[in-house]
């Protein structure tokens, strides 16, 4: 391991990765890797997570292709120094801000979007001229093996390396000095990463999660809008890796008088998208492993939580499948309402007035995304200014990530 990292540092020192032509060649090679291995990628995702090709394309392959293409088209602009204004006092001075690579970068990716979360940061690191060590998650072993075997065939081995392994490898990597660490995962491990980085004053980017709520205020408008709302909620909960996504909708907030309408719409949509029951479930991923499966099943063990199930609830331990499940007003102090769910369970919390959702959200820690289905411009402004989250998306779910530039 130490040898690999020493090689990455040597390579960076030679200055080869700084050249624009090197960066472009690597990005093009990455695009080729994706284009020429689509089927293997689909296969690995199906093996690790039961993802269907459409979901895999939409959330992983397609996103990556777009990212590489976009980066290639903007690279020269991004690399160029930016002129800065100089006050008269310093005439005739000139000033500019110049982007420079940091050096040797460590990327930890997560298991739920094992390609996107490994290769999207890689695109950034390469385009900025760094050398990279990528440590994919061993909880998605087929995807990890694919990356370990395939990346060396396409990219510059001296500058981009992939290391297989589990938490112990991760810990060893964190003892070493990096110029940047990019981590996607849970807040618990995020703290460990940052604490390790602190010893070397290494800057970090931490992509974590939270309980991302969806506020629903549009059911009393036209039936077509209500239908679209339901589709987007269902698509935003069970569409991405059956809810195992940092930006999946975690829970829903709706006015109590509209709850039953919403639940009926959601049930219809779930049946149409994914099937009538757990035996005929399709177009949906499975839970990644036994540990996560048990964790989710345990969330439903609390009798008050179990009582609040209004749809679904069936599980298949052998196949690691939990069917799309809706709960109505589980106790607010239950684990399902205090931990990030990261799975196919959707609590619906009812309020007297939809405006109360702002205080509700603020009583919890800042989520990664707030989704709000509303056409009330005043309410939109209030949500924007009175809540804090990584992102806010109005009237849709997930698209801000998939199609963001």
């Amino acid at each position: 391991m130490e040898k690999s990292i020493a090689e990455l540092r040597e390579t960076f020192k030679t200055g080869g990765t700084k050249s624009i032509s090197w960066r472009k060649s690597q990005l093009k090679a990455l695009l080729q890797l994706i284009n020429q291995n689509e089927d293997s990628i689909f296969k690995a995702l199906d093996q690790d997570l039961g993802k269907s090709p459409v979901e895999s394309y939409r959330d992983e392959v397609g996103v990556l292709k777009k990212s590489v293409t976009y980066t290639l088209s903007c690279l020269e602009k991004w690399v160029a120094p930016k002129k800065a204004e100089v006050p008269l006092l310093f005439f005739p001075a000139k000033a500019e801000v110049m982007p420079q690579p940091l050096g040797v970068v460590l990327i930890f990716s997560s298991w739920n979007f094992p390609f996107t979360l490994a290769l999207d940061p890689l695109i950034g690191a390469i385009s900025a001229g760094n050398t990279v060590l990528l440590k994919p998650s061993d909880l998605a072993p087929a995807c990890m093996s694919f990356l370990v075997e395939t990346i060396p065939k396409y990219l510059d081995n001296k500058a981009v390396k992939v290391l297989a392994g589990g938490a112990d490898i991760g810990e060893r990597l964190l003892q070493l000095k990096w110029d940047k660490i990019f981590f996607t995962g849970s807040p618990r491990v995020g703290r460990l990463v940052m604490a390790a980085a602190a010893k070397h004053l290494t800057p970090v980017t931490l992509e974590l999660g939270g309980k991302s709520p969806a506020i629903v205020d549009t059911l009393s408008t036209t039936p077509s809008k209500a239908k679209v709302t339901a589709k987007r909620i269902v698509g935003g909960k069970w569409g991405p890796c059956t809810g195992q996504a940092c930006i999946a909708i975690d829970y829903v907030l709706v006015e109590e008088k509209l709850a039953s309408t919403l639940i009926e719409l959601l049930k219809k949509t779930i049946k149409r998208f994914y099937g009538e029951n757990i035996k005929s479930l399709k177009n949906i991923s499975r839970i990644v492993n036994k540990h996560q499966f048990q964790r989710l099943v345990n969330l439903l063990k609390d009798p008050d939580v179990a009582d609040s199930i209004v749809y679904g609830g069936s599980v298949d331990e052998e196949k690691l499948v939990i069917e799309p499940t809706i709960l109505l007003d589980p106790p607010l102090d239950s684990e399902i309402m205090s931990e990030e769910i990261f799975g196919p369970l959707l609590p619906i919390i009812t309020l007297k007035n939809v405006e109360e959702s702002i205080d509700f959200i603020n009583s919890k820690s800042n989520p990664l995304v707030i989704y709000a289905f509303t056409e009330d411009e005043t309410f939109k402004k209030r949500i924007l200014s009175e809540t804090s989250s990584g992102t806010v998306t109005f009237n849709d779910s997930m698209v801000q990530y998939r199609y963001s530039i």
Partner: protein
Amino acid sequence: MASEVEKKAVFDIDSAKEVVQELRASFVAGKTKDYEWRRTQLKAMLKMMDENEPQIVAALRDDLSKPELESSIYEIAMLKNSCKLALKKMKHWMMPEKAKTSLATFPSSAEIVSEPLGVVLVISAWNYPFLLSLDPFIGAIAAGNAIVLKPSEISPATASLLAKLVANYMDSSCIKVVEGAVPETTALLEQKWDKIMYTGNGRIARIVMAAAAKHLTPVVLELGGKCPVIVDSGINLQVATRRIIAGKWGCNNGQACISPDYIITTKDYAVELVDSFKCELELFYGKNPLESKDLSRVVNSNHFARLLKLLDEDKVSSKIVYGGERDKSNLKIAPTILLDVPQDSLIMNEEIFGPLLPIITIDKVEDSFDLITSGAKPLAAYMFTNNKKLKEKFVEKVSAGGLVINDTTVHLAEPTLPFGGVGDSGMGAYHGKFSFDTFSHKKAVLYRSFAGDAPLRYPPYTDGKLGLLKALLGGSILGIIRALMGWSKA
């Protein structure tokens, strides 16, 4: 009675918790988000400086024997300018930025909204105790945050003046100063902050970041390093020398994070350079620089002893070519130049932060780049040259927080340039709009409409949908048409 007073006087974990709770309540109540509140606080800062300049200068003289000119210009005037810029531009900075959207999310609109982070902790340093405490305030206030300031106990007169002035002029329900040393700082670091900005050294920075890691608090660390100056031949030597002197001894007597730490020049040019220094230094500070009123003193006996250790090391003391005099009772060391100290000497292996200037000589100017890049990345690097190719190579090869060609330290005063380090010299940046940005969260907002809901996003998933999705994400109109017509492979 006595024990009650004692209780109040100790600032412990509970006191720190209370402070944060109070500030968080003010923040949650929306006090600091209000534009008028931000304006009033910034204006109060200006008033505070206008009405107390003599007291500020006196405190800086007490703590550092800082000459009045340095205090007035480098601390007070710079701060006032920063404040006025923020007042002028704040409304514009606060406005959401429109972001482009792509075909794939049509029809939609997007923007990036700047929101305050919440309650921030500013830990400042002793060398520019006024500037480094209040400059972060400007960004934090403009961005709408509540603030706790922990000024350095090594500059105690300024620390207590700051505590008094901030309490008198600013809104103490949202902005507080906590005086103290290690125990108080530790108590503060146990708390959960929304951002911590620390200015100081690498050792404490690691402690700050480790404490921040427990709460996933983002940090800005403004540190230091050995800021090199490369001096080429064929330049206006007199101007170059003066600018180096101004950046070294004119900046708190070398006790500044961006002071030139050491010089690299060619063997051929060294003698001329040393002579130029001797000439200009005498002009600036006279024949007895220990008596010059235009030089700050060394801040305290710890640092005095540290600097003497660097100077008196055997292999180094013989290399002094100018200066070397010291006055222990007044904590003064004369401007000192050393020629060709060994690379493995103490003085070449730690940030000097004092009035000692080693000159290292090399054969060719180009050799200086490797010498610099073999060490840790400094906060600043300087080069004096008229050679265009050398300038380009310098900018390309040397990684540092900031670079200046043909001057030293002045980039600090440039609000359009981000001021911050890289690697061991720090992370994050501020000044001008960068201050506002550093204390803001840039929230991404996407507005979607209900019209044009594409069924191809949703299950049941079919080959046709896969084909269309590929075409849509690929962005080509032709591809989309082909997919719609069923002409493309899934």
